[in-house]
Each structure stands twice: as structure tokens, then as C-alpha cells.
């Protein structure tokens, strides 16, 4: 009985402790706690800017795009055009890498190839347009351009490697 309740609240333990810790830190003027809370808010702002878009993309794919269509365009036999499509999809998004996992799941569910799923993850981590804008602002066009051009062939290679390695290995992505 107690164990069952514990399983229910387990996901929220971190959150609850953090809230208590933060409120306590402000109450008692505990500076480290305030610093931690402030960097949390920075990350949180980043999160709420990408989450709505993430749900829109996942929702759109789930409802609007039939499996046959996705399979045809970015499935096993899709070729270069398929690679181009997943790269562009990734470039239009924002957010840190873990925000791409739900999209990877939906792509997998709809029949995208292993190669294209990992190319999507690679493009998502390194080529997102909103992020490139910030990068150019801080690190300059030369740096950004060099980094993207070097990264592109490498993460495509990762995609090919993963497809080769996971062939016949029952690869699947779970819904979380």
C-alpha cells in the first residue's frame, strides 16, 4: 500500500524538494540556494520557449502525416532527399537535445529509417536555426560556419554507422 503510493509520487520528489529548498533559501537568505534557483529560472525560460513547438510538431506528425507518406519520404529507401528533409525539420526547431527525443519517437513510430532518425538527432543538436543566430551573435559568422560545415558530414556518418550497427538488432524507440 505504502509502496504503491510511493511509486505514484516518486517522479515528483525532486520537484517537491527543490520547491521547498528554494522557498527555504529565500526565506532564510541562503545565498547558494538563491543562485541555484536563479540558474534554474534561466533554464526554465529556455524550456518554455521550445516546449509548445515540440508538442505542435509531435501532434502534427501524429495526426496529420500518414505512416505510408513518412515511410516513403524518410523511410528505409528514401535516399538523399530523406536526409535533407530530416535535417531541415531539425533546423526549424529549438531547444536542447532531450527535446528531440519525443520527436525521434514519433518519427520512428511513423516509419522513419534508423539512419534518418540519428541524422535528425545530429542536426537537431548542431544546426538549429534559432541557435545558429545566437551563435553568430556571440562567436561570429566564421566560427559558426566552420563548425556547422565540419559537423554536417560527421553526424550524417553517425547516422549511417548506427543504421549499419543496428541492422537486424531489433532497434526500437519507446514512448516515455
Amino acid at each position, binding site marked *: 500500500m505504502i509502496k504503491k503510493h510511493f511509486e505514484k509520487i516518486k517522479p515528483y520528489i525532486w520537484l517537491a524538494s*527543490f520547491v521547498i529548498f528554494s522557498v527555504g533559501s529565500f526565506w532564510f537568505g541562503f545565498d547558494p540556494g538563491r543562485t*541555484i534557483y536563479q*540558474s534554474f529560472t*534561466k*533554464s526554465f525560460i*529556455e524550456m518554455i520557449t521550445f516546449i509548445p513547438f515540440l508538442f505542435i510538431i509531435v501532434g502534427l506528425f501524429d495526426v496529420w502525416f500518414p505512416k505510408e507518406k513518412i515511410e516513403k519520404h524518410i523511410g528505409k529507401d528514401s535516399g538523399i532527399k530523406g536526409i535533407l528533409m530530416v535535417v531541415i525539420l531539425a533546423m526549424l526547431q529549438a531547444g536542447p*537535445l532531450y527535446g528531440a527525443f519525443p520527436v525521434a519517437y514519433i518519427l520512428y513510430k511513423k516509419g522513419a529509417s534508423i539512419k534518418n532518425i540519428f541524422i535528425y538527432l545530429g542536426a537537431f543538436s548542431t544546426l538549429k536555426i534559432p541557435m545558429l543566430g545566437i551563435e553568430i551573435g556571440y562567436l561570429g559568422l566564421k*566560427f559558426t560556419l566552420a563548425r556547422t560545415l565540419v559537423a554536417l558530414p560527421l553526424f550524417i556518418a553517425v547516422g549511417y554507422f548506427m543504421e549499419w550497427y543496428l541492422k537486424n538488432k531489433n532497434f526500437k524507440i519507446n514512448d516515455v
Partner: protein
Amino acid sequence: MFKNIVVPFLNILILVSLLLFIVPPQMIVKYLGAGSGAIGFAIAAVVGSITLIPGFISYPIASGLLKQGASYATVAVFMTTLMMVGVVTLPLEIKYFGKRVAILRNLLNLFVAIIIGLLIGIIL
């Protein structure tokens, strides 16, 4: 789906905030700055792989590093591992992809990030 995604995401943010407190940006700048050489490059790869620093904070750090005379290679490997490798997010990634694939993806991407860093160092 919403709840299942948002709660782990918030947990990651909490963990990241704690990590940023333990390893503050000033400390990163100190160890990766000018003349840090191969050791700086290695530290950049390790710190970048473990942590997950939001863009708001990581780009100013990177720009500060370059202004202080850190090498392009070190900054590139730091930014690339931050983006592509995530030890903090590994538990979540394992839930989606399974242990073997998640670990393999991170190792491969660490390898790729190191190559990117070295190549950027040669190009720029």
C-alpha cells in the same frame, strides 16, 4: 504525454542548476582560458559532455573564453559536447532508446565532437 515529458525535463533542469552551482561559469573560464592547451581541450570535452548548459549561459561563456584567448579548438569542443553529448540526460535517453543505443550514441558523439574541435582548431 505532457506530464510524462515535462516532469523529467524539470528534473533535468534542477540537476543542471545544481551542477552549475558546483561548477560555476567563472571556474570554467579559468580552466579553459588562454594557454590551457591540451589539458584545457580535455577538460572542455569532459565538462561539456557531463553538463548541459542552456544557450543563454553557454554562449556568453564561449564568447568570454575566446576574448580571453582560449583556442578555437577548445571552445568548439566545449560547445559541441554541450550540444551533442549529455551524461545528465542519459537516464532519460535510456528510457527512449534503451541502454545500449543511448550509451553508443553518446560515445560516438563524443568522438565526433573531439574531431570537430580538432578540425576547427586546424581551420581557424
